[in-house]
């Protein structure tokens, strides 16, 4: 059976060689063509992570930080509206950290995330200090993305 699976894996690799270095847009497009709605997948991942946290909570165990990171990173954008200012800023920080590391890893970033941060700026829901922090992070991200593109 190992041989069968090893052969299948080699064949899969060969058939999918053009799937390497996919940006999020291309990835979502391919997922749609294989019958998966990317938004549904994101929601299912979010719900699955929340279910784990809920199970832990019920057992009186704290959810680890990394689990909360996944829950935060996959949260529907509408959840910003019901977050406290502090939680929203923390969430934005996480988004920018994720974007910066994605850019450093050569993975294209989501324009959706950028739009969310701007939305909060427009609504003046963040302090001057946090606004400066976001500006700094955005500038850093853009700089890294530009460097990556040129390189």
């Amino acid at each position, binding site marked *: *059976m*190992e*041989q*069968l*699976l090893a*052969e*299948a*894996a*080699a*064949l*899969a*690799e*060969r*058939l*999918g*060689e*053009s*799937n390497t270095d*996919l940006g*999020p847009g291309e*990835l*979502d497009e*391919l*997922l749609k*063509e*294989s*019958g*998966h709605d*990317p938004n549904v*997948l*994101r929601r*299912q*991942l979010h719900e*699955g*992570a929340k279910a*784990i946290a809920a*199970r*832990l909570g019920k057992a009186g*165990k704290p*959810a*680890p*930080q*990394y*689990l909360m*990171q*996944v829950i935060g*990173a*996959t949260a529907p954008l509408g959840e910003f509206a019901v977050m406290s200012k502090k939680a929203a800023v923390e969430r934005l920080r*996480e988004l920018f*950290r*994720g974007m910066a*590391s*994605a850019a450093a*890893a050569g*993975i294209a970033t989501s324009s959706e995330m950028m739009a969310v941060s701007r939305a909060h700026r427009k609504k003046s829901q963040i302090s001057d200090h946090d606004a400066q922090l976001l500006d700094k992070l955005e500038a850093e991200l853009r700089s890294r993305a530009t460097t990556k593109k040129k390189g």
Partner: protein
Amino acid sequence: MAELDLSGVDVEYVLKKLILHANRLFLALVGLAGSGVLPGLGVGPKDLAMQTVLRFIDPEDRTVVWKKKHGAVTTEGVLRYLRAVLHHDLLDLLRLKAHETTVVLDPHPDGQEQEDGTQRRMSLDDFASALEGPDGRVIREERHAQLLVRMANEPELRDLLALQLDPDGYPARTNQELAQILGISVSEVENHKKRLNRRLLGISREASEDSTKGGGCG
């Protein structure tokens, strides 16, 4: 031990790539053993990938744990690790279902099974052994023919796939080599590869829909 830090990992991206990878694995299994192998598994590529990721982020699941030997916690690193986990899970699943899953040896030329029950069948276990035996090459060629027949209306993709499946073509031919063999330009090869990829994902979708319908034979 320090707690895992996933702040630099795009878990959603990992899940999506893992699903595409599982799709290709399932498709390759169909290419080798026929679509009948999938209903017996009772799980599709998406479910398998989702389970893998959720086990990874579940602190109470001690079977999928990031260890120091895996290196830095990056998106690519986590993806690489979870691919290996998914392979192990699929292997376990195949072993578990090997006796109750049957493979049709001479399916109808259009890829469908005949309904009169005249096909020769063998268990997945025996089929896997047969692949390693003297008839292995013949069996593979028959299986590949089944996949190629589904591309009958797109000869340019069928020809490219035939070259990709060719066991004498390992290691994989370069685009330049493929262009020379097919008598087309390198950019046409690249374009055909993208189309073929999309076409195969479509076939994979059909196959995985079969796999989630359940049932033990095929």
